[in-house]
């Protein structure tokens, strides 16, 4: 009973941390969020995405071919709340809260210890890393929740095989959620099967076959799509390390070897070795303590001035890893360590490592390790007579970290990172002003890249009408767009036709001295974001 009360408290805490001010912190949706939102809106109204594709498995979006499931999941919220920031983000928050509960169930199933399950789920509920992606419309967060439940149902399925089917369905569905899952989830499935092969193969064969069939059936459209569409791998190619240029220095070395007739050198100084090294380095980069605890990676992936985990967790994390490694936890040990080790694999073949979103599947292993460490340390301290003092000190450190995080996330983030969150559109898109003009030209350069999508989103432009005009449009980087009276292209002020009936919206330095300023939008932390001129 006490556990249930505590779990309820964790649930409430997780919900509050994920829902409060969800429409205004982070201060603005980024381009991926508006794209997922508008595509959901489009599918909801017409059954087609922005390019007119009927019930898409994958959204072409900005030519990054996002798996489409998030947009479908956003439809209920959008139909209830309308197309706005809140509605787009709520599905992610919902799955974030589910992940916290899922972690409780999964850890309890694995370790058979309620206290451990509770502490782990509590740590996930307050985790800066998890909150970061639970409060924005990022597909990766849904993928994590699916993985947690897929593992949970798999374990349940060892006792009651019906759950195996649920597990297979979730795993197959996860291919439609996020790119990383296409690598991670199959690996997780392999690990689960390997670890629990004995239990699994003693189950009735019929149900095993049935689960596999379900899994194949559900994943078929995605696999079919991947095989038949050349473009689908564009994104993978675009972000993979192989797309970067082979450094000239490396080529020079090979040339030296060639001139020296150095066979060994030619083996060492070639692309394969170079890329192998890059992949391993990319993998290892995720074990950088600075990335985890202090720096994080790009601004949108963490609260300012802090990392992805709390600093006070460091000792408990290390102790937890040690305990799990050396302790007698049987299969739980293998599952958690393998989960931990395969999490960075999808990110390691991409450039831009370490990457907090592509490795979101690291969660909740960090929290499980830390929970193990915390419980162990507390049980050791409790043996001493004066145990209140050290517990008090640890609690002070923990609370300090937590409040520091709340301040960074809810206050400092909107001020420091408004530009990274592409702030400005909500203020600058004002249909009342636009009405008076025949033509509206919007920049799509620099921080206004893909501005057309923000306009579609905030204008709630009827998808039916847009689809007619978007047929030949491409979603690529810096591509020009046009719909209705709106045009999205680079503004070259000297060459623009200056007329009373044309409105220009762009970056401050897009315009010359003679532009008549109608409105200017500033970042909360200072600096001008955008301006409207005539």
């Amino acid at each position: 009973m006490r556990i249930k009360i505590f779990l309820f408290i964790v649930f409430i805490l997780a919900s509050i941390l994920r829902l409060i001010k969800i429409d205004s912190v982070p201060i603005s949706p980024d381009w991926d969020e508006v794209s997922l939102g508008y595509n959901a809106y489009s599918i909801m109204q017409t059954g087609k995405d922005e390019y007119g594709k009927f019930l898409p498995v994958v959204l072409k979006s900005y030519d990054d071919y996002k798996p489409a499931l998030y947009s479908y999941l956003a439809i209920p919220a959008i139909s209830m709340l309308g197309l706005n920031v809140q509605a787009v983000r709520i599905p992610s928050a919902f799955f974030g809260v589910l992940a916290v509960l899922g972690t409780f169930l999964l850890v309890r199933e694995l370790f058979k210890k309620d206290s451990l399950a509770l502490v782990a789920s509590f740590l996930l509920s307050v985790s800066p890393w998890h909150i970061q992606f639970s409060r924005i419309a990022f597909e990766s967060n849904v993928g994590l929740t699916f993985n947690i439940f897929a593992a949970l149902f798999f374990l349940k399925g060892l006792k009651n095989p019906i759950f195996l089917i649920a597990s297979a369905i979730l795993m197959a569905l996860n291919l439609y959620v996020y790119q990383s899952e296409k690598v991670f989830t199959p690996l997780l499935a392999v690990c689960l099967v390997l670890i629990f092969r004995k239990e699994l193969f003693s189950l009735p064969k019929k149900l095993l076959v049935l689960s596999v069939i379900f899994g194949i059936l559900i994943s078929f459209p995605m696999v079919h799509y991947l095989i038949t569409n050349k473009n689908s791998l564009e994104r993978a190619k675009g972000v993979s390390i192989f797309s970067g240029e082979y450094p000239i220095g490396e080529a020079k070395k090979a040339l030296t070897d060639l001139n020296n007739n150095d066979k060994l050198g030619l083996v060492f100084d070639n692309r394969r070795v170079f890329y192998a090294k890059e992949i391993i380095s990319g993998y290892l980069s995720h074990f950088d303590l600075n990335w985890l605890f202090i720096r994080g990676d790009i601004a949108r992936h963490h609260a300012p001035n802090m990392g992805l985990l709390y600093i006070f967790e460091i000792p408990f994390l290390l102790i937890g890893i040690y305990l799990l490694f050396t302790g007698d936890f049987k299969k739980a040990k293998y599952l958690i360590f393998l989960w931990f080790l395969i999490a960075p694999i999808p990110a390691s073949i991409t450039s831009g490592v370490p990457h907090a979103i592509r490795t979101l599947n690291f969660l909740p292993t960090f929290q499980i390790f830390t929970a193990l460490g915390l419980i162990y340390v507390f049980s050791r301290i409790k043996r001493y007579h004066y145990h209140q003092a050290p517990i008090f000190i640890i609690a002070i450190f923990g609370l300090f970290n937590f409040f520091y995080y709340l301040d960074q996330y809810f206050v400092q983030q909107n001020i420091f990172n408004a530009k990274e969150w592409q702030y400005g559109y909500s203020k600058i898109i004002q249909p009342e002003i636009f009405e008076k003009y025949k033509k509206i030209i919007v920049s799509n350069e620099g921080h206004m890249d893909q501005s057309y999508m923000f306009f579609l989103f905030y204008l709630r432009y009827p998808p039916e009408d847009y689809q007619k005009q978007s047929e030949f449009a491409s979603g690529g980087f810096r591509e020009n767009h046009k719909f209705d009276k709106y045009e999205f292209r680079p503004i070259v002020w000297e060459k623009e036709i200056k007329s009373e009936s044309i409105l220009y919206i762009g970056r401050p330095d897009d315009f010359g001295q003679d532009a008549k300023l109608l409105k200017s939008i500033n970042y909360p932390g200072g600096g001008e974001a955008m301006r409207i001129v005539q």
Partner: protein
Amino acid sequence: MRILFAILLLAAVLRFWAIGSNPPSLTWDETAWGYNAYSLGTDARDEFGRFLPLDYIESFGDFKPPMYAYLDILPVKIFGLNEFGVRFPSAFFGVLTVILTYFLVREVFSNSKLKNQYALVSSLFLAISPWHIMLSRAAFEANVASFFIVSGVLFFLLGVRSNARFLTVSLISFVLSMYTFNTARIVSPILILILGILFRRELFILKKQLIIATIIAFVLFLPLFRFLTTPQASLRFKEVNIFSDISYIELSNRQIENDNGAFFSKVLHNRRAIFTVEFLKHYFDNLSPNFLFGKGDGNPKFSIQEVGHLYLWDFPFLVMGTLLIFKRKEGSWKILPLWLVIGIIPAATARETPHALRIEAVLPTFQVLIAYGFVNFIDNFKTKKSLILRASYVFLFINFLYFVHSLFIHYPKEFSGEWQYGYKESVKFVRSVATNYSQINITDQLGRPYIYYLFYTKEDPRTFRKEAKVSRDVFGFVTVENYKKFNFVKDPNIVAGINVLNINLPNKVPVGARVLKTFYLLNGKEALVAYTI
């Protein structure tokens, strides 16, 4: 014993092979070591004439700890004032550290049945360590300090276990390390303290010997102690440490402002918390995977940029070794993780992190941990001919070969500029034609040219002291403006004339100059040009 000898031979080859030409040339610090050793060997005074300095060698105003110069006197006498002579002590003590590591590890795990394996593999790993090889191949005083620290720990263990007299040797070693390199001045005292605490029971029995050792060490420490209390000693530290960086305070003020000056905000954003986090950040930098396993220190003098300071191969064994050493609790295992943790502290207070040189004091703990993991990994296999085992040997060998190949084939060519290549060639040229000119103007834009002229012309230090015009700025930095007919200036183009020789950067040569000779880096880029106007 035969295996140890083979390891020793390997270590020596990897450290001494072609050190005269790879690294391709001497940095100004190396050149200064050599010339000061030469000067001390001539009339027992350093280059600027201080008689047998014990506290510091002024050099460029960086107040170098003096030990390396003294250790280099004999090599310079024997091998001459050249690259080999300058680098000899570092390579020599590097090889010695490999041997000491063997004995140290045996002593640490003295009650383990695998102690011999641990010891051999540890010293092998140090022998082939990219980190240790790089720092042993150039005149880095840090490398000698590491030797003294290893020696200090080893003799301490021997002292408390077998012969109490070794305690004196141990403490002397630690003190000598403090005369050798700056970071050792922090690491060694903390290490002594930790050792003292770990072995307090044993030491209590050896009170008398401990007191004698302490007195001897303290007397030896006195000259240095007097220097450490002067403002000069703290100057360098202030310049590079994170606590004097005001940008953190500005950030803190900004954040409090963002919170509308709320009280809780002042608590959250107080400077103690900020500096703790900054310290941790710089500390963790030194443990970053990219630094340890990827590209290594961004400074190509410490890393070939192709291999980290450890091999990629080491990673799983480092993790395993660290976990196992805590689990097995063999012998005096505690000293290893503590040593590693302490060794990084001084470097973490500096702005430039990670820094392979400033944390060299942690060697050979990494290698021992890796060896611990690896030996236990091998021990798990019933047959020594297992395929996995063989594959792991092959992979290690490939890692090693890759490093050695890169180091000897590509490294000197690619990074000769980092080693101030071109000075030596230009000085040799100037020396050969100097009699034809009344004045020689040399650019100081590549840094400290005078020391190369002293070094490669084997200038008599007494003449130099008499004729040199030296200036010192408020920060204590020393500039030699001229001696004899050599002028070291920012812009050599001030005086025209057929009897004035100019040595300048290639992009600063005026139009119409008569170019006599161009000096190239090993990658074909121009480094310096000799010309007249």
